[in-house]
């Protein structure tokens, strides 16, 4: 039963992958002459542009081009940058760990903080709840790039405690890594914790109002165990959905934060490549992003199945 539902989810994920990559591919590779002119420069001769189109294989039918690209995905060859000649694989291999470390560090902190804040607000209510609600509205509303710029201003310029730019790999020097990633993580964390905490608060309140909680209370189970054993267990399902959506949102926020703190991640690469017109690189980043999203969703489904007996047996 369980393997069936996993296979179903996997099939669905592959379908989504094909649809999204195909649509993006057509969008980006649809204008072959435009791409070639971008590579050669605006004052290139039409005949040269035509040669470049043929050279890059952009004259073939879109479906053929997409098929070749897909074959490349399967065999692990995503082509080369139009500008540097570097293979897309190499470019991604050096960039992905930066973004992942940023997103994962933020995610772990978001998990801990948002659960603590959301649950506290839901249980205690009163002024604690009102303060939490105020700050979650505030934190979720202000865009990450503004928070990031504010942090640069406060902690790299006015009070120079952290470096404003640059990245040190975790494997090179853990302390320096922490130092280089502290501000970017905080910039992403504020919005992420705020919106996750607000939703986790809602999920806990929702479960607290359910019939079975009243019945368990009537059976004599004290408030503490009732909360930790029963209420949080049921609220963990919706909480998980919130966190998986938040993870994907973090990837979007990373684009801004990497730009501001000059972190060499895929967000920054996407931005520079898009402005150059380096289509194979951008397509490679779209691929990585979609795979990341699908993996997060699958993991979310699996965790949900482990937590929710109804999903397990269905």
């Amino acid at each position: 039963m369980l393997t069936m539902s996993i296979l179903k989810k996997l099939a669905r994920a592959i379908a989504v992958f094909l649809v999204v990559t195909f649509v993006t591919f057509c969008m980006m590779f649809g204008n072959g002459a435009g791409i070639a002119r971008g590579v050669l420069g605006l004052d290139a001769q039409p005949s040269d542009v035509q040669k470049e189109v043929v050279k890059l294989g952009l004259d073939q039918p879109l479906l053929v081009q997409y098929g070749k690209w897909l074959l490349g995905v399967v065999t692990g060859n995503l082509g080369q940058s139009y500008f540097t000649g570097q293979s897309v694989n190499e470019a991604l291999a050096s960039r992905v760990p930066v973004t992942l470390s940023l997103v994962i560090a933020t995610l772990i902190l978001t998990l801990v903080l948002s659960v603590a804040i959301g649950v506290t607000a839901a249980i205690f209510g009163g002024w604690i709840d009102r303060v939490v609600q105020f700050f979650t509205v505030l934190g979720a509303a202000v865009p990450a790039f503004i928070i990031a710029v504010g942090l640069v201003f406060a902690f790299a310029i006015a009070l120079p405690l952290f470096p404003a730019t640059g990245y040190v790999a975790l494997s090179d020097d853990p302390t320096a890594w922490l130092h280089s990633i502290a501000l970017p993580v905080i910039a992403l964390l504020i919005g992420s914790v705020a919106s996750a905490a607000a939703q986790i608060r809602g999920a806990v309140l929702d479960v607290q109002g359910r019939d079975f909680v009243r019945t368990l209370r009537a059976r004599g189970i004290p408030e503490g165990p009732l909360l930790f054993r029963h209420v949080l267990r049921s609220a963990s399902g919706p909480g998980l959905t919130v966190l998986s959506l938040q993870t994907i949102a973090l990837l979007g926020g990373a684009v801004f934060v990497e730009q501001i703190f000059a972190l060499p991640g895929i967000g920054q690469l996407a931005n520079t490549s898009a402005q150059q017109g380096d289509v194979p690189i951008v397509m490679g980043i779209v691929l990585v992003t979609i795979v990341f999203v699908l993996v997060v969703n699958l993991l979310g489904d699996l965790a949900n199945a482990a937590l929710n007996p109804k999903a397990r047996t269905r």
Partner: protein
Amino acid sequence: MTNRPTTEFMLSVTPQPTPRRRRPLIVRLLMKPEGAITIAFLLFVVVLAVFAWVIAPVPPNLTDLNTVNAPPFSPGHPLGADQSGRDILSRLAWGSQPTIIGALIVLVVSVLVGVTSGLLAGFFRGKAEGVGTFVSDVIMSLPGIVLLIALYTLTGPNIPAAMAVFGILVAPTYFRLVRSVVVNVRNELYVDAARVVGLSNTRIIGRHVLWAVRGPVIIQSAFIIAAGIGIQAGVDFLGLGDPKQPSWGTVMQDAFNNIYNNPVGVWWPALLISLTILSLVLLGNILRDELQSTGVRPLSNRSKRTLTRDSTARPVKAVPGGENVIAIRGLKVAYPQAGGTITEVVHGVDLDVKPGEIHGLVGESGSGKSQIAFSTLGILPKEAITLSGSIWMDGDDLLADGKRLASARGSKIGYVPQEPMSNLDPSFTIGAQLTYGLRAVRSMSKKEARAELLALLTRVGIRNAEQVFRMYPHEISGGMAQRVLICGAIASGPKLIVADEPTTALDVTVQAEVLELLRELSRERGLAMILVTHNLGVVADICDVVSVMRDGRIVEEADVESLFASPKQAYTQELLASSRSVEIIEEAS
């Protein structure tokens, strides 16, 4: 029993008059200070955009090498100038228009796509709904900014196109919202009635459905405009916009690139963007409060205490004698209402239950019978207020001490709820939740608890108890679930069971079996029972004594034979007559 009318009581606790609700929405918003402030700020932004040519001291792209990085409040440059000597105020004012237009493109596209598809999916259901939900799930799971960057390689710096695409990316929020509202409305009677009368689908959508979705859509739109401004500024900040066209995002980008030379410069665009987004989000929240909430707020603990102290100050009637399992005296329960008032729903009820007695509590819905049941267990909803009264058990007043009430739960008083399926925790096996509940009130090993529960499950009529013990709630039937709940209520050996409509949610055949089981258990174990029901058939079947409730008072109490033979109160006679006519109808059909 006090007979003070409710209204008199309410006046004494109603300091502020109820606000009039029928003012126009905009007036209601402006009357709130936070509403007035946000609307004023948004108005300021609109004025800035429309009258940029008046407000801006100089053209936005005018460079002046004499004023490079001029600080704020310099002559001619109230907010200072940037690295090219361009006036920041002029650039922000001129930049308001493209920013707002970008946000409006997002709004229009997402409303058109999302609301239309949501209306269709919700109204026609079926395949259209399935496809729509799938597409919206896929779109929602994509990080929009990455797609916008990919789009840039195709279109170049084209903010309107990017905003239109972003509109499609956020359209699922409208789709889901509108779809769920429409599904609800569609199931409501008035749409059925409209269809019976012969109105066409378009007329129905136009008249009823659009009316119902307008509130949620207005609220959502405030949030979508906020998101649109954020993304527009963000895309420009990344440098994906037209560098010659000033906007809040490009001003922010220029200031950030120059942050070491003129750190104050980033503050103006950052403040303008944040405050605008914040105002829109707050406006959305205020709109939600105005259009959707009931205005009821739970009272703070302090005002709850004040209310309770005032009313318990009155002397309690004499402590009831010891022949009762439970004796309720002068119980008053109230709920907060909109506008800070409270309404009493139970007006000082007295109730005695003797050992082994099955005491029926009957009345129509809203008569306060469940409130009494919940009070004895201390499981009233959070917002409820027990104004006064006492509940005596074994010589102690349970209401006087929260700890005493908590320790009586489960051990002295058991609870059988109404709806069996929703009253079992879906995350735990039947065995796990029964064992855990039992061991919370009686100290015993897991093994002992298991053995005792298995025997008890068999006793309440579950044949394969071992197997059911390992099952999850969704794997058993409603009748079985009710037996499990009865088992959970009696396992800890209470003297009293409070059963709240224990058979209402069950099939007719199962109802009779469950009633029979309750009667047998009461006899076997000498259990007293408070049985809340609106069904006089159930009362006649199983109860020894009946209390008839109406509007929060017990109007008549008698043993069951004499009540059915010679009801004293007019209301009881009415109730009996109406229940007989229901029986006749049921038999005839």
